[in-house]
């Protein structure tokens, strides 16, 4: 949203002689597939995701006071962490409820810590911690396969739908004075199911996954989840991001194909880039799939500002 880079006139696309595969003397198609099978960042990310969720489970089972609570609110070695969207809802309903002054210091610490982290890394949580993301990633693979086999049709919605839900859920919280979203939140549901044992509510998560498989790819993450939407807003200027180097790009668009939120990579198409260097937008989850797949290594993780210093 409000991407001023996008409105600038595009820079000229590279001629054949300047394309990375010509410089290497390779066939274009061969060059495009040269990074196939590279899953470096994906593997690291899955390891982190599983480790974090396992830590929650083990902390409870083995009674280690290491990472207590669940993903909606937790204590990491005594230091509170609270999901930003949850905290926002609590603040909203505490105002008419009159218990705003009772909100603890720990609440504010947890709220502001995660808020600060999201201004640094945007939606990194989504792909590196969220257990639903992990399941949805699998569902996405199945969905893509079914689409390829022409068994199901792909349905897309508007990406700004998330902000409608974001505002809607906040409004619902205010109107019903209930943290409505947490009842539907697959992150919290999965996290609690892993830590405190499963329940019937898991059927809701299953229903979401089935919907994503047979109807719309990554429906929840892309169009609904207000948790991610919160961090897309707060992480607008996040320094940790994916950097695009136009000189190394071969316009193959493989990165957009693997991306959960392809619109953040709008600049990779021939004749779309408006600058030599672009950064993926705030919806980017820093999952690294595009980095793994890029044949020219045009996409890299970077810390904005720091690369200029070095």
């Amino acid at each position, binding site marked *: 949203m409000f991407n001023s880079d996008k409105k600038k006139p595009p820079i000229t696309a590279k001629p054949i002689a300047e394309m990375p595969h010509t410089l290497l003397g390779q066939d274009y198609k061969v060059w495009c597939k040269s990074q196939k099978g590279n899953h470096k960042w994906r593997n690291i990310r899955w390891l982190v995701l599983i480790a974090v969720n396992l830590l929650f489970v083990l902390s409870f089972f083995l009674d280690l006071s290491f990472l207590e609570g669940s993903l909606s*609110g937790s204590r990491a070695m005594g230091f509170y962490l609270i999901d930003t969207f949850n905290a926002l809802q609590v603040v909203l309903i505490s105002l008419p409820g009159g218990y705003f002054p009772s909100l603890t210091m720990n609440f504010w610490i947890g709220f502001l810590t995660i808020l600060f982290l999201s201004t640094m890394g945007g939606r990194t949580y989504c792909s590196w911690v969220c257990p639903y993301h992990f399941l949805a990633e699998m569902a996405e693979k199945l969905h893509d396969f079914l689409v390829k086999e022409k068994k199901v049709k792909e349905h897309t919605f508007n990406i700004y739908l998330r902000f*409608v839900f974001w505002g809607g859920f906040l409004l619902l919280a205010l109107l019903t004075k209930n943290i409505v979203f947490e009842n539907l939140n697959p992150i919290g549901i999965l996290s609690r199911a892993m830590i405190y044992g499963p329940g019937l509510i898991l059927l809701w998560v299953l229903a979401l996954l089935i919907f994503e498989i047979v109807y719309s790819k990554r429906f929840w993450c892309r169009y609904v989840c207000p948790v991610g939407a919160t961090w897309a807003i707060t992480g607008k200027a996040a320094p940790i991001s994916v950097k695009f180097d136009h000189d190394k790009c071969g316009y193959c668009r493989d990165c957009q194909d693997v991306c959960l939120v392809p619109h953040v990579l709008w600049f990779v198409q021939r004749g779309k880039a408006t600058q030599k260097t672009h950064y993926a937008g705030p919806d980017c989850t820093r999952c690294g799939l595009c980095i793994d797949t890029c044949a020219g290594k045009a996409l890299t993780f970077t810390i904005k500002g720091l690369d200029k210093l070095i």
Partner: protein
Amino acid sequence: MGKEKTDIDRRQFIKSGVVSVTALAAIGAGVGYLKKLHSANARTTNHLRPPGAVDENDFIYGCIKCGLCVQICPIDAIHLAGISQGLSYGTPYIDLREQACDFSCDSLQCVETCPTAVLDFKQFEEAGGNAITAYQKIHDVNEPGFNPFKVQIRAMKEEVKMGMAKLNVNTCLAVQGKGFSGTPRGTGFNGIYRSPDGSEKKASPLRDREFKRGICDLCVTECPIGETAIIMDDTGGVFKPKVLEGCTGCGVCVMVCPTENPSIIVEPLKPESDV
């Protein structure tokens, strides 16, 4: 969004808008319905909120279902409600008959750990602080056995109000003049608690205890609060446990009651307001 709108396919935008508004309206209606359904049986005698819980209506508003209170409880008294509890799904409760709150943690840790204000620690902090101040006025630091914390813990415990115990005179053994000997809940029972006589540092299983009473008075002797909460009334040779104002609703009496259905139950406090 302004100029950005030119990028958006009009039909898709309308489709998406319809989907989101319908979904939100459905959720709103669902919540309203559940709320109506739920308010009828908010807290039941077997499902009490942990100590310090604010008014039930506020409670289910504010709880973020993180489960920190579940994790910190040393005797595993707190559980998270299942989906059958409607809007209460994921919120903590205590099933007194299975595992009462015996104040084993000594500091109301579940309340202290709660990141939101639905388990409100303020009242306990104040009560504890006042008790310390009062104690220090009478006792000197150099006095042997100077220990204000004991008083503080006591004051905090007494501030708890999870509910109010109520006797069922029809089944109570004492009312019938009967005694009790043996293990109240059988040898397969998993509940634990700490004997109120101060002989134990940690809670131990109820199944390991043997009682022998001429007139059953387990609810009176095992109460962690003591004579401000429950006493044995024996006017005219008829015995009857009498619940007093000091009852915290911790439910140890419910857990130890040897009759098949507990002859003493804890009634949740009436919500101050209704929605």
